[in-house]
């Protein structure tokens, strides 16, 4: 039922004005995102294969975030060559990329690698009808309007010479080299300067109200 997962209301101090993080997670069945979020991390930035783009500059040394299941992004992306958007399916049609529904995991893992401890744990969640309580790694403040779909359009779908198979390189702009990570490590600062420098280099819009809400 609702209200079972009240989140702490964080206060963010920024540029003289304080804003309230008032976005809630009301339900076990229905998820809430206030802004972008992707469970991923990375270490070093790989050589870009994205044409017509200047990757944003900036690094961040994020904390380790313990996840309920140590999800190996590398096994999925690097070894098995699964496209990021296969699981983060909302990224191309929503402001948020979304955490894949548990049913999506089970689509494969009801038959693949069922004996592995992590999959056993996943299966347990599935059978209890509870999605794993993932922890947010990437987020922007609530006063920021960021949309995945338009960034993907600019750097992937409308980008001449760009192969959709290489989408992980675009994701890496902000999320780091996720395909060589297991879980969650934030390596990009995702602050205004980071966004601004990228918009400058790639001629993105500069209107305050494009991003501030």
């Amino acid at each position: 039922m609702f209200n079972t997962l009240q989140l702490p209301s964080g206060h963010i101090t920024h540029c003289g004005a304080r804003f309230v993080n008032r976005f809630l997670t009301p339900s076990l069945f229905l998820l809430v995102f206030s802004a972008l979020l992707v469970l991923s991390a990375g270490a070093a930035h790989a050589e870009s294969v994205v044409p017509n783009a200047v990757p944003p500059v900036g690094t961040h040394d994020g904390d380790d975030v313990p996840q309920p299941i140590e999800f190996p992004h590398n096994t999925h992306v690097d070894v098995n060559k699964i496209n990021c958007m296969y699981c983060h399916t909302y990224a191309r049609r929503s402001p948020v990329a979304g955490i894949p529904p548990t049913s999506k995991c089970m689509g494969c893992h009801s038959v693949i690698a069922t004996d592995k401890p992590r999959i056993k744990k996943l299966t347990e969640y599935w059978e209890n009808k509870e999605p794993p309580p993932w922890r947010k790694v990437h987020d922007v403040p609530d006063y920021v309007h960021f949309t995945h779909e338009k960034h993907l359009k600019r750097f992937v779908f409308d980008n001449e010479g760009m192969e959709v198979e290489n989408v992980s390189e675009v994701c890496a702009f902000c999320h780091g080299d996720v395909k060589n990570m297991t879980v969650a490590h934030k390596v990009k600062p995702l602050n205004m300067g980071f966004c601004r420098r990228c918009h400058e280099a790639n001629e993105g819009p500069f209107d305050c109200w494009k991003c501030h809400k």
Partner: protein
Amino acid sequence: MSLSNILEDWSRYRKDREDGGFHDYEHMWGMAIDLNKCIGCNACSVACYAENNLPVVGREKFSKGQAMHWMRIERYWDEPDLGDDRISEFNQHGANFIPMNCQQCNAATCEPVCPVAATYHTPDGLNAQVYNRCIGSRYCSNNCPYRLRFFNFYSYYEDAWPAPLEMQLNPDLSVRDKGVMEKCTFCVQRIRSVKDKAKMDNRPVADGEAMPACAQTCPTSAIVFGDLLKHYDPDTNAPETKVTKMWRAHQVELGKPRQNKQNPELRGYRVFEGLNTDPCVMFLERVREV
């Protein structure tokens, strides 16, 4: 609006308005509000509270003029009835209602006085307030001739939405904290999502697609919202928007402190346009049978 604009270009900006504009505008969002149809019912105002996370301030703060109604209905009684009831015993022509939201002035008096450029003009022709930048000097609200800027004197979020009321808050815009000025945005979050959608489909924004909460709910459809820009661009193939048609039909033009209408009987006017604020909201005069 950067500092250089403020320091160097302001007089040029004000003057250039009369020659057709300063920016390369993408849109010029505007309104036409028909006072012949407005019934003063308050639906627009409450819709605005619902859409824009406006806090309820309560009786005491309301009495100090701190209410946060971005869209409000002003009510005036007829002038001849003023004070002396020997003139007329009753308000026999009813009340005068006018919905007042930010007039989105193109030569906004609030913009140049902001010491940190937190309020500026967007390429959409909107008078923007960037909450993050705002330091709460309140110069802008002092300078607004319409009194349509609202200051967060308190951290209203602390008690304006006791649980679970806060679950209604719109995630598409911030909840503002103490020390920040705020104002009507023409529901920029809706405009933004409509523009995003149009961009995703590689098409222009259609007329009527972007709709602020007040215009959407208005029971008499007295509020018409749309893009005024095409008014100034006869070359474009895009069909004229409804709001542009209304402005043209009433011979009201942007960029003029005084309208020289061919037909002075036409009802369109802008409130306090003589101040050369160049508002993007046109009103159509109230009509009464006598």
